[in-house]
């Protein structure tokens, strides 16, 4: 009974955060709901393994991340843009002041190939550092750095229509 109360409490407190994370990762409302549901189911099964209850949110995030990486990551999007080699240049252009359009952001993320999108979301949404991303995705640190730099540059170009060069 206590277990049921606990999981219910977790759903009430964290369902929105988890859904947002799942949505950014998957780019789909339906998938995001499935991933969130699966995350809570797994959390319910494994709640005995939670050693530090004060870090439950991070624990739920890590479950969600694993659910996504293991089951949904390889789902191919329709439009995935390849990142050109020179897109790094964009990183060194001064960002504009215009506010970020959230719809445009998701569209840009959806168009990004998974190998670039996932590290980007782990970095910006999950606030993971390079090392954490490398471990989560089982990639060398250098690869993570390179992919993130390209993804950031791509995102900046997509989100800012007329950047001014310093």
């Amino acid at each position, binding site marked *: 009974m206590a277990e049921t109360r606990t999981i219910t409490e977790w759903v009430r407190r964290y369902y*929105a955060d988890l859904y947002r994370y799942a949505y950014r990762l998957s780019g789909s409302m339906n998938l995001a709901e499935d991933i969130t*549901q699966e995350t809570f189911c797994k959390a319910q099964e494994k709640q005995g393994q939670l050693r530090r209850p004060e870090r439950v949110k991070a624990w739920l995030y890590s479950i969600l991340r694993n659910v996504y990486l293991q089951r949904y990551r390889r789902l191919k999007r329709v439009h995935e843009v390849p990142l050109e080699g020179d897109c790094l240049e964009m990183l060194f252009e001064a960002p504009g002041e215009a506010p970020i359009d959230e719809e445009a952001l998701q569209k840009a993320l959806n168009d990004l190939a998974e190998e670039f999108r996932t590290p980007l979301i782990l970095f910006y949404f999950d606030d993971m550092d*390079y090392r954490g991303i490398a471990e989560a995705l089982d990639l060398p640190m250098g690869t993570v750095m390179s992919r993130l730099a390209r993804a950031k540059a791509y995102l900046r170009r997509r989100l800012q229509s007329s950047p001014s060069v310093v």
Partner: protein
Amino acid sequence: MDCPAARALWLEHQGQMPGSAAPEAWRLHCRDCRDCQMWEQQTRHFESELRDAMQHVAIPEGLQGRLLERLEQSTPRHRAKPKRLHRTLALAALLLFAAWLAFFVDMQWGDSAIDLNALEQWAKTRWTNPATMTQDATVRQIEVFFKQEHQLAVKLPPVITRYWDFRLCTQAYLQPHHGDKLAVLEFRRGASHALVVLLRHEQVDSEHGMPYYRGEIKGSYLLVPSPTEGNIVFIVMKSGIPDDFRLAAAA
């Protein structure tokens, strides 16, 4: 930012390699390079906005309710599984115990004494002496042994005029004939067991009504489905006989 030296420095700084001097080098560079300083501020501002924007996702209406509902639906299922399993296991254990109890009661108080004469009649018993026997025992010794140790009335095969080791007989016969030709009957009387090996080749009246028989051979059990046909070849003896027992020793 059009500062080639700063570009590599920035990328390395972003990587935050443990023990890297890049953050400090970048800070020192920005102190002297106003362009890079401005660019860094703008970039940090943009990234901060980006982090915020990432968090802004509309939550579908009724999501919380759906999640809770599905979790509640899945909870009884999760818990029913072990409950069902436990119930099934308990039932199986109960049935097994009941079967064992019935068997035990039958063995203890049922009419389990073996009437070898009747058996001989039913099965048209033919006694055979295995060719591989080498151990010795007298007929009298064998008769006494079965009578005293197992309280079984034994009619020995006429061909056994010399010596036997019944344990070896069992093994000698079972190994070459293991399969559908041999059946093993287990008879109990008190704590004693006697085994009767059947070589099946003729129809036998099933009046004795034993659907399954079990014999202990080399420490394992041999289960034979149907003993209702065949001839008794010879009688061998129980498990639990002392290892050093040799009928020949009493000669």
